[in-house]
């Protein structure tokens, strides 16, 4: 009798444990305002169309209207900021984006591919120092000393902002 109870109760306890584990509310990623397009404060541009941003990210547009060269600072692969830039702006996979830039430099269309930054802090620090620099960071991480661009007339957090 005791063994029969054990045969029933042990599986039931395991099932209950599994149910508790799987039915417990999963941690939900915090809702963010999106990825901000951040530039050096001296860049005399407030708004970019998404297509203009794409041309910059792909190296087809290399200069700001003032004549200062655009310096692209991108997080290393896997970072959310880079993933949003590559997938949402360029509509590419990471492999396609990488091949695009190898080809771009090989075609002698530009001497420099995007420079890699390893943290949001590093990206913001470099953007504040390098004239013409542009990077992508989580909107909530943006501090002073840099400028956030509108994309298609919208800032991060506004309805319809495309970089999420």
């Amino acid at each position, binding site marked *: 009798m005791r063994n029969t109870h054990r045969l029933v109760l042990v599986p039931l306890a395991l099932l209950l444990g599994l149910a508790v584990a799987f039915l417990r509310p999963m941690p939900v990623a915090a809702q963010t305002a999106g990825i901000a397009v951040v530039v050096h404060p001296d860049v005399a541009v407030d708004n970019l169309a998404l*297509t203009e941003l794409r041309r910059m990210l792909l190296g087809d547009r290399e200069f700001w209207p003032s004549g200062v060269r655009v310096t692209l600072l991108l997080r290393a692969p896997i970072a959310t900021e880079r993933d949003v830039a590559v997938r949402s702006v360029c509509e590419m996979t990471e492999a396609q984006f990488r091949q695009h830039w190898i080809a771009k430099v*090989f075609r002698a269309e530009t001497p420099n591919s995007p420079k890699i930054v390893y943290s949001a802090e590093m990206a913001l620090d470099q953007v504040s120092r390098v*004239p013409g620099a542009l990077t992508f960071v989580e909107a909530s991480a943006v501090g002073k000393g840099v400028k956030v661009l509108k994309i298609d007339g919208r800032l991060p957090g506004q309805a319809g902002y495309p970089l999420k």
Partner: protein
Amino acid sequence: MPPGGDTYPNLKIVGFGDVDYSDTKRPEGPQGFSEGQFVLHMASALSPRVTFFAELSFTAEPNAGTGTPPAPSYAAAVERMILRFEKNDQLKVSFGRYHTPINYWNTAFHHGQWLQTTIERPEMIEFGGKFLPVHFVGALVEGAIPASGWNLNYQAGLGNGRGSDIALGGDAGDINGNRAWLVNSFVKPDWAYGLEFGGSYYKDLLTIPTSVSNIGEHIVSAHVAWTREDPEFIAEYAGVRHEAVGAAAPTWSHAYYVQGAYRLPQFNRLWKPYYRFEHIDIAAGDVAFATVPMLDGSTVGVRYDATQLAALKFEYRTWTRGPGTARNYGGFFQVCFTF
């Protein structure tokens, strides 16, 4: 990166290489394994507005060790060497040795076989070929204009034109004192991201040993390319008009190719099957193209990207060399990479 941005010069070197295998019914080119080109590409910004590019190739010599003096194992060549001054996106001026901006393929893929989908370039623009001038020594003015989202690109060039061997550019000087010139324009509209189409015009005066008089050369070309990989589509046409000075009538020779590919969404997007049809028609009596073979050929193959920087390509080709010629066919393989 230093606080003010780049330091100068900031030389970067990228390399490309490939190893090939071919087996055809009737030999045309190397059989069995062959070493492809070993290519080094250098890019260096000399200042925020001045940049330098160079492309060096090392090609295995089929006649190595023969002749007097004996031919070396490898032929080294400066494929491109360009110094560019950039005012802004609209105006860039450069000098040097280029791949002639006369069609899409010649300026999109260069010597790195890893960059192109197929094993070989289309024959109309193959390296060492004569149909189109692959190299151009001179100066180029180029730029891109937004044009309300059409993104109009232009190039205009003045150079030496072809050498006495018309497969070669006039590297050491113009052989006849008559400069070649070209204009090229294409658009990449925002409303169709991935689409590019445009055309070119090229004019030169040829001086070749097999003709007693100089030959005027006019080339017109057009291209359309959809560069996204799902699908990828490239089509190009070029027409070459030759008219010997004092001759009664000019000749027109034509070439085109159509290539389609599709990166399969399955299997981690590593497989990309493709097909290309190409055609070259040489006009009877065209003295300058007397040794250029005609072509009707199909290529079917698949590219497998083993890593982000190395790929394997497998191809079957079948072709004829003009009306009444026997059909040739063969299998081809290439492993190519960048480093």
